[in-house]
């Protein structure tokens, strides 16, 4: 009856996304075959005792799940979102109580012969809840109350998941801030976050490396301080009236640093970090003075940013050594190249790079990868599945997979933007952010670019929970998208 009034589900369905989804599923299954294949027993891929066989079950059930979601009414999701969210909070809360300890993780609940990981499903619950919250009539991101409420919706499940010792899955929730940026969160918050990560990584990675072969200068320290100087100059340019005195200030700041560096290199070696700190202190004081003089709060914020940056940077070492857990410390140190232990934590990353690097342009061919099959790469069918793609399908295969993911993400942005209501748009951006974060962290870690955080690559990593989780996440968006036409007509 409904189909008479509005275009049918099949006409409104975004087939572009469906094709990408199917393509990724197919390539993912091939990778699972490659990763779980054993040279000893050239077995049947459809044998349910093997992982490739089991993955067929997960894929088939995901397709069924997707079809079921498409045949529901999209308005259910909006109206049930709070209930779903609260349900998941309860589930996440009780999970560590019910779960058995699997490799230090308390996130798996055993149901019959299967185990499920509620954290993988909680993403769509949270996304629905955030979308519903932000879609309410009087929600305004610039109101502190709304912003905090919205942040809480994101941070509560995150905290519960951290309690399950699944830091990786918890960090995924940070990606929701990308969506919040789209919905009006000031860009400087995002920028501050990125800058903080940059300080942290650069500062620790190059802490002991000398700059320009001057032994007394720590490259990490000086580069971070120089970044702070640059950011200040950039902010002065963007956020303040461009007065000549400010140009002078920026010029002096850069010139003095360069002069100090040259002096240290050619006259007498000394640590230019002190000069840079001096420059920062002077700039900050001058900006505070100007902000009072001109009654312009932006100068004050910029000074605050500089103070925050420097103090953040100086506390990173403390954070690394005293706040993070030992295995996380090790992972970060190894990722940043501070620890070199081929059989220890860095082993994964080294072997992953070897596996990918050995693939060459065309790869070794389906089932011909040696590194993955001979178990050199650990977690090769879950977190490190991208190694199999790299080794067997080569540069061409990797580029195709990455391009597919990029298409999916850009398509999700497009889908989100064409939603008539905030609810759909916010949900769409949540989905897009989650996918982007997973791809960024997972592929980045395999390529040795990001820290080794154990999160799955969507549609590739073995496992029912993650595949179902991503399928639900994506298909709810597709269902909401189908509804856009009906809503338009009304």
């Amino acid at each position: 009856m409904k189909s008479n009034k509005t275009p049918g589900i099949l006409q409104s369905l975004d087939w572009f996304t469906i094709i990408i989804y199917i393509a990724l599923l197919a390539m993912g299954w091939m990778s699972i075959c490659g990763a779980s294949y054993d040279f000893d027993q050239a077995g049947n891929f459809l044998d349910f005792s093997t992982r490739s066989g089991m993955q067929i079950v997960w894929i088939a059930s995901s397709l069924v799940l997707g079809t079921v979601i498409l045949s529901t009414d999209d308005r259910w999701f909006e109206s049930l979102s709070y209930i779903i969210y609260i349900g998941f909070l309860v589930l996440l809360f009780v999970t560590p109580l019910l779960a058995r300890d699997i490799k230090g993780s308390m996130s798996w609940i055993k149901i019959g012969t299967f185990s499920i990981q509620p954290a993988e499903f909680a993403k769509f619950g949270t996304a629905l809840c955030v979308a519903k919250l932000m879609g309410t009539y009087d929600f305004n991101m610039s109101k502190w109350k709304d912003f905090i409420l919205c942040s809480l919706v994101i941070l509560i499940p995150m905290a519960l998941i951290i309690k399950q010792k699944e830091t990786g899955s918890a960090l995924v929730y940070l990606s929701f801030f990308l969506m919040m940026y789209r919905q009006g969160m000031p860009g400087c918050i995002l920028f501050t976050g990125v800058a903080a990560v940059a300080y942290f990584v650069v500062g620790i990675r190059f802490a002991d490396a000398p700059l320009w072969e001057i032994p007394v200068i720590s490259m990490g320290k000086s580069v971070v301080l120089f970044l702070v100087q640059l950011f200040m100059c950039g902010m002065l340019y963007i956020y303040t009236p461009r007065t000549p005195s400010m140009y002078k200030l920026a010029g002096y700041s850069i010139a003095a640093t360069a002069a100090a560096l040259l002096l240290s290199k050619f006259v007498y070696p000394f640590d230019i970090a002190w000069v840079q700190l001096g420059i920062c202190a002077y700039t900050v004081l001058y900006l505070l003075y100007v902000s009072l003089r001109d009654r312009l709060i932006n100068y004050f914020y910029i000074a605050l940013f500089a103070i925050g940056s420097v103090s953040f940077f100086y506390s990173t070492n403390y954070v690394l050594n005293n706040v993070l857990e030992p295995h996380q410390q090790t992972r970060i140190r190894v990722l940043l190249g501070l620890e070199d232990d081929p059989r220890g934590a860095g082993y994964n990353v080294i072997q992953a790079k070897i596996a990918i690097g050995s693939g060459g342009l065309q790869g070794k061919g389906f089932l011909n990868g040696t590194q993955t099959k001979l178990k050199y790469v650990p977690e090769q069918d879950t977190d490190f599945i991208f190694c199999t793609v790299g080794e067997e399908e080569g540069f061409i295969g990797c580029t195709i997979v990455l391009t597919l993911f990029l298409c999916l993400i850009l398509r999700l942005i497009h889908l989100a933007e064409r939603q008539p209501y905030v609810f759909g748009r916010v949900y769409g951006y949540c989905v897009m952010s989650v996918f982007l974060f997973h791809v960024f962290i997972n592929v980045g870690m395999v390529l040795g670019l990001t820290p080794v955080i154990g999160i799955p690559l969507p549609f590739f990593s073995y496992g029912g929970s993650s595949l179902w989780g991503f399928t639900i996440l994506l298909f709810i968006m597709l269902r909401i998208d189908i509804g856009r036409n009906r809503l338009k007509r009304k």
Partner: protein
Amino acid sequence: MSNQEYQLEKRKYVLGGVAICIILVFIVRLFFLQLMSEDFKQNADSNAFLKRVQYPARGAITDRNGDLLVYNQPAFDIMVVMTEQKGVDTLDLCRCLGITPQQYEKRMEEIKNRRRNPGYSPYTQQLFMNQLSVSEISSFQEKMFLFPGFYIQKRSIRQYQYPYAAHVLGDVGEADPDDIEADKYYQRGDYIGKQGVERSYETALRGIKGSEILLRDARGRIKGKYQNGKFDQAPIPGRNLTLSIDIKLQALGERLMKGKRGSIVAIEPSTGEILCMVSSPTYDPRMTVGRQRGKNHLLLSRDPNKPLLNRSIMGQYPPGSTFKTSQALTFLQEGIITPSTAFPCTHGFHFRGLTVGCHPHGAPIPVIPAIGTSCNSFFCWGLYYMFGNRKKYPTVQDAMTRWKDYMVSMGFGYKLGVDLPGEKRGLIPNAPFYDKAYRGSWNGLTVISISIGQGEVNLTPLQIANLGATIANRGYYITPHIVKEIQGEKLDTAYTRKNWTMTEPKHYETVVQGMRKAVVDGTCRGANTTMYEVCGKTGTAQNPHGKDHSAFMGFAPMENPQIAICVYVENGEWGATYGVPLGALMMEQYINGKLSPASMEKAALFENRHIYTPTIYTANEIK
């Protein structure tokens, strides 16, 4: 509000841009990882491919009559896999292998020490004991089921049929870092010829290693063949060698030289094939095989009589009177003397206060009896007239150079190029040598002793034997060599080419007459026999460090010679004391194929006549 909405919508480009940037960075990273660097590929291959070497059988070595001398014998290495060997009764194991528990513990520690054993993996076979013989392994093999984690790996080591010809045959040992550096063919643990024929014919004997490529997983376990052995290569077995040595002659030579330091070298003149090469003292070549190798080598290298030294090609001795033949050939060809030129001898050469003594004999005499009686004066006069001949040679240096050229053409002063490692060149002085020694002020008299094979002149026994072969050939020699035939390969042309000396064959005939006279009624009478015509020349080389050296150079029969020989016995005094009788016995053995009963008695006599008390080295190892 709508403007703000519009402003916010622009943020989709920021987010899309971020996603594009991330993917671009990844693709660039992949580009560098996968396309720009070969390191990862090699790393991956060394990870996953275990190239297992398949060793070819080393070539066998036979003597000139096809008698097997060197062959391969299985030896057994005991391997251990650390993760599997738990719960083994170590006392029982030690008893089976004949080691002490302390040795067991020490060896286990060595295996686990990654610094000393860089290839260590607890999952793969590690070498526990190497080169055990069948008898050593038998009791272990019976009880092997009691020792999980211990395995037997078969290897192939050299074995020797006879306790003779150690210096010629040489030995085989593990390639050392220098060998590996010099030839990429070798890897750690490979065997390589270290001495003798094993070394000089290494490339022919070793064959070519094969390989099979196996897949190895992260724990070092073998997971089958790569692509079902498509890239495997079968080993190519080494080539068999036929030596020119007659092992019976060699055996007799070694017997005769017992208790004496020195050398016997015999050459077939027509081919340059070395029939025997005895260096004494010697040792049993089996000492160099098996687990005792290192210990034995140390023992031998510490012996003051230097049994490891191959005196036949490394010993450089004054040739003494055997050298006079070469002088006669030079003087005759240069026209200094004719066969009828006679020089006086009054118990020696006396001239301007210089005296070179000689034994009593009729005088003056021409060249043939001079060789026969080994007259010192004759050759001193000859050299004096040659070096003093200013019509022919403007300066003494020119004469010296001419003389040296003759010597070099006879194979002296440089390595002959025998196919054995370590050959020495001896010493033939030249004009600059004496210019330096005497600051330019010298003449024929100053260097007169070179004419009788003393002074600065040094030859190896091989060079002396080759002189005999050259005279037997009446003017040429073929570079002496020890390998007669390489299976499926041609011999180096250097070993088939005739090297003519600067002297014409007719003058050689004169010298042959002289050497025949020496045997018939001269210094070599002890070598005379009715069975064939022997030609010879004794040598008694003065030795400032002790008793004179006894030398003999000869060949037989006079026409169509079959054997040319040099016997050199350090501190053997007169040439006739050892040189002649030993040479005679050797010639008889070779020409007749056996010794007469009388000769056998004589041989036994000489076997037990010792100049020093010898240490007899025999293999204290497996047979």
